[in-house]
Every structure is written in structure tokens, then in C-alpha cells.
């Protein structure tokens, strides 16, 4: 048995340690070197695990089996929606949000009613939960000292009141130690993280002791259960209860964000958004570890203690106690104490902030007392209000505990609180993602949901405790059957938590959406909706300043800051802000919209956005911005966004156009280079005959005594080269005209067979001179085509003269054929010359590319015949190509389409 002295000493030492950690954390924060790392942040989230987890999970597992796990799966799933939580954090930082009540109120036009309503719901919903913690600590004390019925007494107080008192003192020291009222408490967060570690280690120690010390591991425990069929059902994930599982998942998922202490830790106390990324896996890991031994402990307790002799909620203490492990009992007690105190501290700080800012401040601001003390520093008053609220909340918790007594097991109370804060979900999520949500809608939704919650869950629990007549549960209000509190509209068969959750959320969401759609928001609501929903798009350095207009005096505003923040902190913030605007002296700050906005957000951090709004409105001569004006300004903002989007699109289009231009330019350069090459080639072709002409002319001129035969030969060459030059110039001009589309064409009906016969006759002498045979196969009665007779003649003559040029003298044969195929006339000129390689087959149609290397025939060709022929054929819609292989001769083919037959 532990002595009271040892327990008190260890407890005091532990509290002292926590306090030292908190002091250290605060000191480091003041020095600008925050100790809140991603790990500390993640651990502090484990404030979710209260004594309800530490003691209650085991108790719940003895009756509900594995369903206790849902309470931990819900938060895991919710945290995976990182985007939602990040958005909440971003909004809270931009708006200097101090609590969940502040968040909802700020979103719906900084409404004091809404802030007040959320606060009332939170207090009513949470007080039983705090009572639960007190009960757990008191029960733990009784267990440690072997007493019963909370009879441990000190100085005439019962143990529970004592615990409440100590916790109140502790909370005051932690949460309101600072005279300046800011929204963050880094020291407290650090202490909570330490507590999270301690309670986890304590629970694991008990788990290991029981599972491996008393029994022989998991396998041993589970095999013993086989001997108790009444316990075996605990190991089945009972499918019939899946409805309940669903409800518990949703409830706990909401609770991880909307319980005031969770919102405080996750959102308000967050120093760096990136910490969340660590928490997303570290926190679920923590939950997994702390649940690892829940089922073994539950089973061990059930096996060890005869049914009904020991409260399952105390197995964590009673099991080691029964085995005389005193040190472990003490450690487990400290662990349970950690779980309870962590919850109570953060929850009461969060609630006291809400009570101070959202209930007390509005009353204070309306009272005459404040007006009389116009110049006084109110920061002390604020702290005093908070401290009073802390004491009040814990006192309420104690009273509730005393009154409710043993009405419910621990877990029951926790779920009632969860269901209460779940009512914040529609207004929160709607506020973050739905601009149309209005203040009236949020008020209606919260009231509807809260009413259903109270009627179906809270009041029945009162009735069960015997405080009121339970007939509304049994037979329905006024005896109306479908108003039975836990079977509304005849919906029976659900457990009370699921029943309450689904009905209350339905009523809440329905009222929120319906009323929001039916009402119009005012100017402030509209502006806030924009800032919340579009928080990621707000990039201005001083956001929101453009939505204020009026006259303010610097002195008056500074006076306000000093009153509510205290002179020291006010001065500090003013200097910081002035530096931000590039001023050395804050006294020279212009009292403009941006400055008023700064002041209002500083005040909001201390007293909440709704009260801050009211104070600023009273202290400055504000001009009301009409709804239309706000719409205009917001419209302007969205126009700016639309404009910049448009600009982006334009820029992309411009880049595309630039790319096209660059490509076009490249193509032009290419064409230019081709033109250069062409001119260079033409020059070459012109200079070549000129070279011969000049050389022979000079030779003749210089030597008058040249032999006559020689003279005749040279003159013949000159004449030939001159003809070649003329032909060349004519063809170049011809080609240039055709390519530029300026050639003259005389189109008429042409008999292609006759054209071919003409051409053969013209060149007949040439063939006979070289001894080349020329055969023709011209089909009879071919239809005429539309073409230019002279041009077609030019093509045929070109093909024939090429053929005769390349075949061997005497053995050469050229065959000409004219026929009809595929709606076109087809002319082929086949020779038995050397043929062309595949590469040459396409090269011969390029300008100045001459086939073969026969020196003798060179002067005859210009290298332009085939390109010109192809131009002509293509002009009439036909094609000209060559089919050939080396040594196999060449066959040039061209077609001229026949006129389309008349339909």
C-alpha cells in the first residue's frame, strides 16, 4: 500500500516538472526560439486521449469489444484530409482566431450572437466531459489508497473537489500566466506533449506487466478466453453493430477538430502548417500504441476479477494493485493523472477564452462600468475574467459530477460531449467551402442541432439520473408516440448515440442550408465569406484593409490597443507593425484603413473578432459600406483575378504566336537560302557557255591566221554555246513565270495522240541521225483533254530528246505509248538506255540536275527540261514521274486527266 505522502510527493514533483517545461517553453517562445517542433505538435494532439481513453477504453472493451477502436479510427481518417485542416489553420492565422466560437462567429460577419451560442453549446456539452475527468482522478485516488466512494479527504474537502481545485490552480498558472492576452500558449503545448509521452509510457507499462508479467503474452491471454465463451464475443467485430460503428467514426472524426481543446491545439496553437504533415502519421501511430493493450487488459481483468466485483474502468490500476506492483500502480496513476490534467487544462483554457471573449466581453462592452473607467488598462480585467471562468468551469464540472454521480459509465459521458460538438460541423465546413452560408443559417442550424441533441441525448441522461420525469423518453412528449426522445418519428432500433447524431445533424444541416438560401448576407458577412472560402487566393500584404472606410485618430486607436493588450504589448506590436510599413516611429503611422485593420486583428487576437469589431466600430467614425459597395469591391477583386487569368491565357497565346513566327522566320530563311542557291546555280550555268564563247572569240581574235577548218570549228562552238545560252535564259524565265503563276496558258481541247505524233515527226531526224529506233503505240479515238497544246508538245519533245540523248547510238530503242487509264490519258516514253538509280529517279526532276555524265551531250541539256515539264503536267492536274533501275532503261510517264464525265 502506497502512503499518502509518497503519492502526494510524486504528484507534486510531476506537476513541478510540467510547470518547468511550460516556463521553459514560454521563455523560448518569448526569445523567438520556439520549441514547438513537428514532433511536439503531433504529441500535443494526443490531448485527445483523456482519462476516458486511459481508463475508459478498457471498460468499454469489456462490454463493446473492438468497437472502442472507432473512437481512434475517426480522427485518423479526419486528419488524412490535410487540405481541410490546413485551410482551417490558414484562415485562423489570417483572422487571428482565438477559439472555435471565434472562428464560426468571424465567418458569419463577426457575430456576437453566434459566438455566444457556440460558447454556450460548448460549455454545456463539455462540462460533463470535465466532470468525467474529475471522477477518473478521484476514482484513481480511491483505488490507490484502497478507499471507496471518494472518501479520501483533505482539509474537509472531498478528493474530487480537491482535484478540481488543484487543476484550476494549475490551469490558471499555465494558461493565464501572461498578463498580455494572446491566442497562443507555447509553454502549455510543450507541457501537454510531455504529458502525452508519460501517459503512453504508463499505459504501455501496465499493458506489458499484465500481458507478459501476469500472463504469458497475447497468445496465452487469448487462449484462456477460449475457456470463457461469454468473453469470446468481445473479439468479434460484430457486423450487426455496423450502424453504431459508422456513427462513432463520424462523431470522433468531428471531435478531433471541433472539441474546443482539439481546435485550440490543432488550429490555434499551430506554429507551422508543415507540422501537420508529421502529425498525420505520428498521431495515428500514437493512437495505435495506446490501444495496443486495451483488449488484453480488458480480458485479463474479466478473467482475474469475479464478475461485478471490480469496475472495469479501473482495471488499469486494479490489475497491478492486485499483484502488489506498487511502483507500477503509482506510475499508472500518474499516467491517468496526465491524461486527465492535460484534457482539463487545455479544455478549460479554450472554454475560458470563449467565455471571456464571447460571453463576458459583449456584456462588459455594453455596461456603464466600462464607460466610466475609460482610460484604464483592461488587460488585467481580461485575465481576471479568464481566471474566474476557469474556476467556474471546474466548479461546474464538480457540481455536475456530484449531481450526475454514477448515472453513466465514463464512455457514455464522453460520447454525449462528442455529439454536442459535432453540431459545429455544418457551420464550420459550410463556412469554409460555401460562400452562400449566412449568419441566420448558421444560427438556425446550430439551434436546431443543439435542440435535437439536448432532447434526444442530454435530457434523457438527466432523466436516467432521476433529475426529471422520464416520460418523454418512455412514451413521448405530451404522450405523442413519435416524439419519444430516443425513437424520434418512430426511428427505433438505433443506439442512442447514432439516433441522436443522425437526427441532430439532419436538423442542423437542413436548417443551415434552408435558412442560408432564404436569407441575404450583410456587407460584413459577405466580406468574411470571401476571406474564408478564398483564403488561399488572398495574396495582398495587408488583406482586408480595402473593406474599411471611415475616419480614425491614431491616438484613439492606440489607446484602444493599450487598454486591451496592456501598454507594453501594445507598444511592441505597434513598433513591429510600423517597421513592416517602413516607419521608424509608430507615432507617425497614418490612421488609414490598413492601420485600423491591423488594430482590429490585434484586438481580435485578445478578445475575439466579434468584440474587436464592436470596439473598433465604436472608437472610429466608420462609414458603413453598403452591401452593393462590398459586392463591388469583392467583384473588383474577382475581376482582378479574372483579369490575371486572362493575362495568363494571353501570355500563353503570345508564346504560341512567337513560336509560330519563329518557325515562319526559319522557313523564310530556308527559302532565302534556296533562292541564293538557285541564283548561284543559275550564275554558274550562265557562266559556263559564256566561258567557252569568250575563250574561242579571243582565240579567233588574237590569231587571224588560224586555219579555216579550225576557224569554222571554233565558230560552230561559239554558235552552239550561244544557242545554249539563249535556251537557258528562256527556260529560266519560263520556269520563273510558271513558279510565280504569271505564265500564259492557252487552254483548249487537245488531241494528245496528235501532239505525240507531231513531236515524233519533229525529232525524227535526230533519231535517224543517231540510228535510234522510235516506236509508237497510240490508241485509237482517244477523248480530247483540256490543255495548252504547245506546252504539251514541249513536254513530249523534252522526254523524247532526253531519251535519244541517253540511249546508245545504233542499238537504242525508244517506245512511245498513249492510252487511257483511271480517268486520265497516259503517255509513256520508254528507252533502253543506262537507267537511273532510285536516288537519281527523284534528282532528275530537280533544277540543273542532269542525268548521266556523257561529255558529248552535255551542251545540249540545261538541267531545266524535266522540272519545266513537271510544272506543265501538274498545271493541268496530271503527274510526271519515272520508273527505272540501273541498266534496265528508263520509262518516263505522264498523265493528263480527262474532263469529268457530265452527270
Amino acid at each position, binding site marked *: 500500500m502506497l502512503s499518502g505522502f509518497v503519492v502526494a510527493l510524486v504528484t507534486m514533483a510531476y506537476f513541478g516538472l510540467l510547470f518547468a517545461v511550460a516556463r521553459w517553453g514560454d521563455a523560448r517562445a518569448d526569445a523567438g526560439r520556439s520549441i514547438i517542433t513537428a514532433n511536439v505538435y503531433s504529441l500535443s494532439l494526443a490531448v485527445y486521449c483523456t482519462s476516458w481513453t486511459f481508463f475508459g477504453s478498457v471498460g468499454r472493451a469489456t462490454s463493446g469489444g473492438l468497437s472502442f477502436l472507432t473512437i481512434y479510427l475517426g480522427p485518423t481518417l479526419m486528419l488524412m484530409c490535410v487540405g481541410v485542416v490546413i485551410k482551417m489553420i490558414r484562415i485562423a492565422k489570417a483572422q487571428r482566431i482565438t477559439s472555435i466560437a471565434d472562428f464560426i462567429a468571424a465567418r458569419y460577419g463577426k457575430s456576437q450572437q453566434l459566438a455566444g451560442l457556440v460558447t454556450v453549446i460548448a460549455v454545456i456539452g463539455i462540462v460533463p466531459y470535465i466532470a468525467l475527468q474529475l471522477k477518473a482522478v478521484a476514482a484513481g485516488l480511491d483505488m490507490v489508497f484502497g478507499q471507496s466512494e471518494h472518501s479520501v479527504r483533505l482539509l474537509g474537502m472531498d478528493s474530487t473537489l480537491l482535484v478540481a481545485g488543484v487543476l484550476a490552480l494549475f490551469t490558471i498558472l499555465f494558461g493565464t500566466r501572461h498578463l498580455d492576452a494572446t491566442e497562443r500558449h507555447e509553454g502549455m503545448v510543450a507541457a501537454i506533449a510531455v504529458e502525452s509521452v508519460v501517459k503512453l509510457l504508463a499505459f504501455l507499462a501496465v499493458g506489458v506487466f499484465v500481458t507478459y508479467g501476469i500472463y504469458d503474452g497475447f497468445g496465452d491471454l487469448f487462449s484462456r478466453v477460449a475457456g470463457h465463451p461469454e468473453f469470446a464475443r468481445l473479439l468479434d467485430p460484430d457486423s450487426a453493430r455496423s450502424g453504431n460503428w459508422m456513427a462513432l467514426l463520424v462523431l470522433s472524426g468531428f471531435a478531433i477538430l471541433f472539441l474546443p481543446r482539439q481546435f485550440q491545439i490543432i488550429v490555434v496553437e499551430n506554429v507551422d502548417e508543415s507540422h501537420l504533415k508529421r502529425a498525420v502519421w505520428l498521431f495515428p501511430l500514437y493512437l495505435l500504441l495506446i490501444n495496443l493493450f486495451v483488449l488484453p487488459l480488458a480480458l485479463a481483468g474479466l478473467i482475474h476479477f469475479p464478475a461485478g466485483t471490480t469496475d472495469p474502468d479501473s482495471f488499469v490500476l486494479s490489475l497491478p494493485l492486485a499483484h502488489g506492483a506498487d511502483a507500477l500502480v503509482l506510475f499508472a496513476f500518474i499516467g491517468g493523472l496526465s491524461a486527465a490534467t492535460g484534457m482539463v487544462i487545455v479544455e478549460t483554457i479554450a472554454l475560458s477564452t470563449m467565455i471571456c471573449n464571447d460571453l463576458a466581453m459583449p456584456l462588459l462592452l455594453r455596461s456603464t462600468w466600462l464607460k466610466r473607467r475609460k482610460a484604464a488598462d483592461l488587460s488585467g480585467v481580461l485575465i481576471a475574467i479568464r481566471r474566474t471562468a476557469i474556476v467556474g468551469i471546474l466548479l461546474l464540472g464538480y457540481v455536475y459530477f456530484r449531481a450526475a454521480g454514477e448515472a453513466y459509465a465514463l464512455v457514455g459521458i464522453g460520447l454525449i460531449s462528442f455529439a454536442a460538438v459535432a453540431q459545429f460541423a455544418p457551420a464550420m465546413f459550410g463556412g469554409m467551402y460555401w460562400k452562400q452560408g449566412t449568419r441566420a443559417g448558421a444560427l438556425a442550424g446550430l439551434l436546431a442541432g443543439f435542440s435535437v441533441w439536448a432532447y434526444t441525448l442530454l435530457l434523457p441522461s438527466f432523466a436516467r439520473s432521476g433529475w426529471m420525469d422520464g416520460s418523454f423518453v418512455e412514451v413521448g412528449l405530451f404522450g405523442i408516440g413519435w416524439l419519444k426522445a430516443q425513437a424520434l418519428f418512430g426511428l427505433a432500433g438505433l443506439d442512442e448515440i447514432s439516433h441522436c447524431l443522425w437526427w441532430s445533424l439532419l436538423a442542423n444541416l437542413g436548417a443551415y442550408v434552408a435558412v442560408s438560401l432564404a436569407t441575404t448576407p450583410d456587407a460584413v458577412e459577405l466580406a468574411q465569406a470571401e476571406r474564408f472560402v478564398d483564403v488561399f487566393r488572398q495574396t495582398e500584404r495587408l488583406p482586408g484593409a480595402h473593406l474599411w472606410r471611415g475616419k480614425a485618430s491614431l491616438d484613439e486607436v492606440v489607446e484602444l490597443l493599450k487598454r486591451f493588450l496592456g501598454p507594453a504589448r501594445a507598444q511592441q506590436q505597434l513598433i513591429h507593425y510600423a517597421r513592416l510599413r517602413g516607419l521608424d516611429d509608430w507615432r507617425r503611422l497614418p490612421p488609414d484603413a490598413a492601420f485600423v485593420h491591423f488594430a482590429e486583428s490585434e484586438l481580435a487576437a485578445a478578445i475575439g473578432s466579434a468584440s474587436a469589431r464592436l470596439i473598433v466600430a465604436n472608437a472610429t467614425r466608420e462609414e458603413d459600406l453598403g452591401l452593393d459597395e462590398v459586392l463591388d469591391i469583392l467583384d473588383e477583386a474577382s475581376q482582378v483575378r479574372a483579369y490575371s487569368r486572362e493575362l495568363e491565357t494571353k501570355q500563353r497565346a503570345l508564346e504560341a504566336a512567337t513560336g509560330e513566327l519563329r518557325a515562319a522566320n526559319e522557313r523564310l530563311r530556308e527559302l532565302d537560302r534556296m533562292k541564293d542557291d538557285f541564283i*548561284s546555280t543559275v*550564275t*554558274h*550555268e550562265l*557562266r*559556263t*557557255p*559564256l*566561258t*567557252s*564563247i*569568250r*575563250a*574561242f572569240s*579571243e*582565240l579567233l581574235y*588574237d*590569231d587571224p591566221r588560224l586555219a579555216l577548218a579550225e576557224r569554222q570549228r571554233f565558230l560552230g*562552238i561559239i554558235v*552552239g*554555246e550561244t544557242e545554249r545560252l539563249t535556251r537557258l535564259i528562256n527556260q529560266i524565265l519560263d520556269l520563273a513565270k510558271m513558279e510565280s503563276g504569271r505564265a500564259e496558258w492557252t487552254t483548249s481541247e487537245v488531241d494528245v495522240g496528235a501532239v505525240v505524233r507531231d513531236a515524233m515527226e519533229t525529232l525524227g531526224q535526230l533519231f535517224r541521225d543517231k540510228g535510234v529506233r522510235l516506236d509508237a503505240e497510240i490508241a485509237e479515238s482517244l477523248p480530247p483533254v483540256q490543255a495548252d497544246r504547245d506546252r504539251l508538245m514541249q513536254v513530249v519533245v523534252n522526254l523524247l530528246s532526253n531519251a535519244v540523248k541517253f540511249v546508245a547510238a545504233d542499238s537504242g530503242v525508244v517506245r512511245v505509248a498513249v492510252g487511257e487509264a483511271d480517268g486520265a490519258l497516259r503517255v509513256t516514253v520508254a528507252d533502253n538506255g543506262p537507267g537511273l538509280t532510285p536516288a537519281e529517279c527523284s534528282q532528275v526532276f530537280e533544277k540543273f540536275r542532269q542525268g548521266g*555524265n556523257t*561529255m*558529248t551531250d*552535255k*551542251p545540249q541539256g540545261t538541267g531545266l527540261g524535266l522540272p519545266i515539264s513537271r510544272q506543265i503536267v501538274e498545271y493541268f492536274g496530271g503527274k510526271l514521274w519515272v520508273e527505272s533501275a540501273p541498266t534496265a532503261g528508263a520509262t518516263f510517264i505522264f498523265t493528263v486527266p480527262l474532263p469529268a464525265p457530265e452527270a
Partner: protein
Amino acid sequence: MKKILIVDDEPNIVISLEFLMKKEGFEVAVAADGDEALSRAAAFSPDLILLDVMMPKKSGFEVCEALRADPAQAALKIVMLTAKGRDTEVARGLAIGADAYVTKPFSTKDLVVRVKELLGLA
């Protein structure tokens, strides 16, 4: 008697150059393309080569490079003849070792003077 090799794919130009050089008292050989030019140069071992640039099979530039790479032809004078008179081509011809670069159409008198200069006969 100095020997001159005339290389050009234009038969009429070859005729005129052959006549011109023979009249000046040189021993003359002719070739109609790049490959033939190299084989004739080896067999005939000319003192000077009149080399057209635009030719089938091997261009005048390629022939010039091949000759300059051949130690046996170290004393050979090379005169490039071309109908393409761009500065870049002149520069290229001289860069690969041609002794002179003459554009077509050329003055027969000037060409003779030039050839004699290169052969040390003037």
C-alpha cells in the same frame, strides 16, 4: 617542256584550253572528271593543273586536297577554275592549297600570263 593537265567536264572549255596551252608551247593532257584527274596526274606528272571545281564524281576541291596530300606532287602548281565566284569559295580554294583561283569566264591572255608566272617562265 612544261606539262599542263586540263580538268573540266565541259568539253568546249577543254577544247579551248587545250588549244590555248598547246599554242603557248606546253605539253597538254585532259581529264573530264575528278577521278580521271587523279589518275592522269599520277601518270602524266604535270607541272601545273587547270582544275574545274564543279565536276561529277570528285569536285575540284577534293582533287586539290588529294593532290596536296600526295608528296609525289609537292611541286605541282594548282590553278582552280570555277564559274562560282563567291568570296567564300575563293577563300576555300586557297585555304586547301590552290596556287591561284580563276573565275569563269576568264581572259585567255590573263590566264596564260598567270600560268607562266606560276611556272617561272615569265
